[in-house]
């Protein structure tokens, strides 16, 4: 079953068209990766899918419901959760307060304690730093808060934009491992990554975005062997 379906989506900023009819389907329980060079519209696609940006054309369907015209907060309430690029934490608030804000919706609040325990288990470091202001943490810890805050929202689908950007390889690996753990719980995820080999290695399915369109798609395993993907994104 497709949990999220994006159909013929076009969008852009102030008259500059960035997306030229994107089609994308996320299957329930699967980890999907979206790959593409800088500037092909990955972040624009996510912003439009989440409702931060109005689409020009096309539809976004989540769990069988047309959400194209819902504001961003309503999509988050319904279970579409984006961990944005560059963390976008509430830097003046404590780690715990950030997590509380993640669980703002009624649905998420109901299982606040359960999710908090789960998140602290996944990132024990955050438990130690719970009372600290998010802005004072290191880059890796901030990324953990960003993911944890997303998980607190009780997502049906978790979208992670540039999870490993600016992190050491070791930290990136740790975060990717937590993704495979989350996958085991049945969470549907969309990963947007510049670390293509790592992303494809953990994913079930992948899309390659180029010039505002889906250029290639297929099982992640197959794309890893694709010559063009190797040349363009893996540098082999």
């Amino acid at each position, binding site marked *: 079953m497709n949990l999220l379906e994006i159909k013929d989506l076009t969008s852009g900023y102030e008259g500059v068209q960035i997306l030229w009819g994107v089609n994308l389907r996320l299957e329930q329980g699967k980890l999907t990766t979206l790959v593409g060079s800088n500037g092909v519209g990955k972040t624009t696609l996510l912003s439009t899918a*989440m409702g*931060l940006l109005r689409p020009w054309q096309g539809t976004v369907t989540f769990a069988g419901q047309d959400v194209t015209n819902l*504001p*961003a*907060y*309503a999509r*988050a*309430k319904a279970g579409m*959760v*984006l961990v*944005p690029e560059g963390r*976008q*934490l*509430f*830097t*003046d*608030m404590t780690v715990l*307060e950030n997590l*509380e*804000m*993640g669980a*703002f*919706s009624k649905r*998420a609040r109901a299982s606040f304690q359960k999710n908090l325990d789960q998140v602290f288990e996944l990132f024990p470091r955050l438990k130690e730093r719970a009372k600290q202001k998010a802005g004072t943490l290191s880059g890796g810890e901030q990324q953990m808060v960003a993911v944890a*805050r997303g998980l607190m*929202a009780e997502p049906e689908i978790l979208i992670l934009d540039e999870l490993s950007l600016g992190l050491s390889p070791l930290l990136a690996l740790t975060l990717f491992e937590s993704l495979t753990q989350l996958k085991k719980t049945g969470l549907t995820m969309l990963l947007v990554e510049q670390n293509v080999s790592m992303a494809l290695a953990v994913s079930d399915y992948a899309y390659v975005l180029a010039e505002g369109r889906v250029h290639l798609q297929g099982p992640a395993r197959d794309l890893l062997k694709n010559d063009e993907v190797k040349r363009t994104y893996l540098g082999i």
Partner: protein
Amino acid sequence: MTQILPSIVDGLLIGFVYGVAAMGLTLIWGVMRVINLGHGATMALGMFCTYLLFAHFALNPYLGMVAVVILSLLFGVIIYGVALQRVIQAGYLSTLLATFAVNMIIIGLGTWVFTTSPRNIDFSAGSITIGPVILQGTRLLAALAAVVITGALYLFLHFTRPGKAIRAVSNNRAAAELMGIPSSYVLALAFGLGTMLAAVAGGLTSTFFPFTILSGSTYQLKSFVICVLGGLGNPLGALLGGLFLGGLEGIIPTFMPVSWVPVVEFVLFVLVLVVKPTGLLGSK
């Protein structure tokens, strides 16, 4: 010394009220980056609200404050919905003009209804004499109210869900939306709170100074000076800035003509802007 001390104490007590007014301005700026030019007019509305309740229903001004709180909160939320929501993303000039328009409408209608003849609330809460200092009851109560309001605001922002949502939206609006926080409603609430603080400060002022519908503009300017002193966006800084300005207004007339007070205040304002534009207590 026997002259200066009472003046300082008097100034400080008024300073608490200045602080509350400035807090309203600084809260709105801090959360939504809007400079509310309707701030002074809102204070004047608070004065008239308190006055009308006192004059027509003989309601104690401090009980009247409860009505001022509720009405001004509602008023602020409505003003946000009508005048600001549509232009909030459009940049400083648009929001500045929108709040200026609100200011002109309030003053225009207020002048038509109330004229500009001065009113005053003839209410005494007694006085306490300590050595050379005579403490007016109304000023003491106003200062006390200011402290209670500041404390309540702090608790609200740090320990309640809507309060934390205000801080989250102020910190990062897009991220708050993504976490399921309806940021438009949160901004409306923040504007309502800022408006309420202005109106309450106005109401408290009306118990010790005569006023007209135009009185707000002086206090609005003072609020700007205080916000700059305390650092824009910093509520505690606003209170301390208010105390500082109030104290200054108490001291200056003991060795200079009263008409020099605004001169000193604005020289200070410019100096702070030149030397430390983030405010004496500002961090960023």
